[in-house]
């Protein structure tokens, strides 16, 4: 199966994500320019990277969500193809309507970059199957707009359906109910603010993120 990392003008974690996928699965993903209108045949994973697409001069992710490639991604997600959005990728997926809620400016108003503790809340998805429910992991965050918000009904629903994948175990950005990452209702789309691709080997200080990509082995390899 193939994987693809989508590249928007202003993406800047595209290479890091591609390296993580390649190093863990042994197969390098295609780098797909946002102007493309079709995904490679037999696509097994779509990864939407972090960065500042279009400078985030409008709402973060809002411009990228209207890129030509997004129509194909929405369609593929509907067919059950795994879609992973990290940081700006998460913002893009919410703007594209693939995930509920929105990411607002951090509560403290400042950009925040540090390693934070997370609790794995759902270990049933393709992405989180190699983690234990309730397990603590440490991923870095690096964002200005990571403050997840949604109306109470939506929050109750995603909580009730077990769609919270990761929750902050410390105060980070003011996210509603400490939500750091969520799944869509079918469980094949994950959006998260923390960066698992930055912690996949000893040189990174820890390799807690590695298992997320290992979980994708079967779909990608």
């Amino acid at each position, binding site marked *: 199966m193939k994987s693809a990392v989508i590249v928007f*003008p*202003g993406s*800047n*974690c595209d*290479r*890091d994500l591609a*390296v*993580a996928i390649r190093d863990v699965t042994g197969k390098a993903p295609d780098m797909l320019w946002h102007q493309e209108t079709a995904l490679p045949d037999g696509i097994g994973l779509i990864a939407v990277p*972090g*960065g*500042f697409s*279009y*400078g*985030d*001069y409008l709402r973060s992710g809002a411009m990228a969500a209207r890129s030509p490639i997004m129509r194909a991604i929405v369609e593929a997600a509907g067919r059950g193809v795994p879609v992973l959005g990290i940081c700006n990728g998460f913002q893009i997926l919410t703007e594209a309507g693939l995930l509920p809620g929105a990411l607002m400016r951090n509560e403290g108003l*400042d*950009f*925040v*970059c*540090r390693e934070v503790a997370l609790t794995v809340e759902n270990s049933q998805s393709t992405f989180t199957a190699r983690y234990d429910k309730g397990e603590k992991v440490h991923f*870095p965050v*690096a964002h*200005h707009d990571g403050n997840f918000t949604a109306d109470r009904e939506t929050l109750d629903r995603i909580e009730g359906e077990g769609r919270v994948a990761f929750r902050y175990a410390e105060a980070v950005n003011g996210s509603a109910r400490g939500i750091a990452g969520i799944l869509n209702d079918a469980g094949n789309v994950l959006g998260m603010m923390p*960066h698992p*691709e*930055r912690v*996949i080997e000893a*040189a*990174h*200080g820890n390799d807690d993120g590695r298992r997320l990509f290992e979980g994708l082995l079967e779909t990608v390899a």
Partner: protein
Amino acid sequence: MTQPTEITPEIVAEHGLSPEEYERILRALGRTPNLTELGIFSVMWSEHCSYKSSRIHLKKLPTTGPQVICGPGENAGVVDIGDGQAAIFKMESHNHPSYIEPYQGAATGVGGILRDVFTMGARPVANMNALRFGRPDHPKMRHLIAGVVHGIGGYGNCVGVPTVGGEVNFHAAYDGNILVNAMTVGVAETNKIFYSAASGVGNPIVYVGSKTGRDGIHGATMASADFSEDSEEKRPTVQVGDPFTEKLLIEACLELMATDVIVAIQDMGAAGLTSSSVEMASKGGVGIELDMNAVPCRETGMTPYEMMLSESQERMLMVLKPGREAEAEAIFRKWELDFAVIGKVTDTGRMVLRFDGETVCDIPLGPLADEAPLYDRPWVPTAPREPLGPVPAKGSIGDNLLALMASPDLASRRWIWEQYDHMVGADTVQRPGGDAAVVRVHGTKKGIAISTDCTPRYVFADPVEGGAQAIAECWRNITAVGAKPLATTDCMNFGNPQRPEIMGQFVGAIEGMAKACAALDFPIVSGNVSLYNETKNDDGSGSAILPTPAIGGIGLLADIDAMATIAFKAADEHILLIGEDGAHLGQSLWLRHIAGREDGPPPPVDLELEKRNGDFVRELIQNGQVTAVHDISDGGLLVALAEMALAGGIGAHVDDLDHGRAFGEDQARYIVTTAKSDSILAAALTAGVTARRLGTTGGETLAGVPLHKLRDAHEGFFPTLMAN
């Protein structure tokens, strides 16, 4: 065209040119310049572009070595890091704009230095910075700190280059002139390095990037004068940055550089289109002809004068091989950037500009560049400081430590670096907070260690020793992570060079730096000079900054697995001091914060000792004989121990220290920890290195102070200062 402006003495003065310099222009042209030509001369002859007060002294700096591929004179310095790869790096000041408009001033400082590095074919892999602020409680300072930090973060985070470290000092001398020095390090293939010398008569000159606007006109001239009452009114001379466009420009340029269509390339930095075109043509010994109607402009009605002097950001100038324009244009269009052929290389040795069918400028290039004014300004050496003599202790050692760890110059910088994405690229293997940042060379086991250093209070007290110390400390920080120091970039921030005492500081610092660079095999391969960092007082005198020759150095780690960090790793390890016991309190932070005095000479720098001790420590690291390493600098031995203890969350049991031993800032010293010290002490004896055991790691206190109290004091300063 409108009526030509008559060049009056007032207009000449407004352009920052002296009457003598104007005479020189008349002689060079053999006629009266028009306004466009005058503007071009004024920016090219500004201190910022011409280095007219500093050039004769900068020549004394060592700039060569087997590791140097390209020294000063190009956009950045280039150093060999083996395996066909090169590190390309430079540090540059953006002081004046950052004081006037801190967010944009700092942001565009980052943007400018990034362009200097990727212009040469390197992908930028790390940003660093060196910042100096005034008193924390100065009414303007919080605004300036917040603006600068947000500006650096806003730009660096968006372009996706990690900001991996830096340094910050506070001193009243910077109340009216803060310093913002930004450094970028990039990596390129040694056979794909791009230079700026234009060549090939008839080759097209191409403009890419953003459009030209009216921002930043006369920025270089503004940066070449003192601040006075009206500095607020100079806000329109500050440029506005667009990091998103810069990111596109990086990717587009690197994509184009993978082809073979570029003959020469240069970014448009200070003095914009003027300095980029003049430098490219004069370096290539050719001429240049530009069609000003072809320059992409942001607004209508811009004059050639405005286009030539604009400092709009995110623009580059290139000479392409003939007939390859379409290939290049396709890449820039893909990245949604402007692309315009605006001229051609000529053989006239002149810069000719045409606009609306008229020749609006025709200047021989020689007088603009190579034959620009050069001054040997009068200077007086700085008088040596009286010896300090004995200074009595004050309070307990533990209380002193607690106060120092919370002081502005020593407190944790976490509040700053957590606002910078310091991990993007996934190659940051030593994050901020250690002696040097380390960034892995992508796809290899090699690491580039980077540190920025200067102790301005030392330079002020003794420019020669202080200049040497800045180089030595940088070398030591790179050594302390286990890297071999390779080369440096310097950012020379000083006051008004027309004052002999300021010029004396400059000359002295260069002397000390040159000595240290030579002794430590640590040449200077790029740099920048920022003068006139002073503010006019009401009585006409000047308040200058402390002389601040900020040094940015890089080193190479052959294998990042051998890298050392400052954190204590385990309890019951031996703590060793490499180097002599401390005693020197002159110009120390202890003297300033605890004794309330700023006097005495700075600690002397013994370069032979630096080299011997540093080489010894590097070998210990490379042999895997030590578990943690930290150099001893600001605050002395006990502060260094406290930093190691806090980083590891482990205390230490050390012998009782008097205040001289605890807080003396003697140079050439390191602390290391090890599970077995005997072999190290024996090796030290053989190598002629002084070493002794200080104590043992473990427990939850240091010098009787609980670690949690030290941590609260250390971490509290910035959040408290910047709250609400």
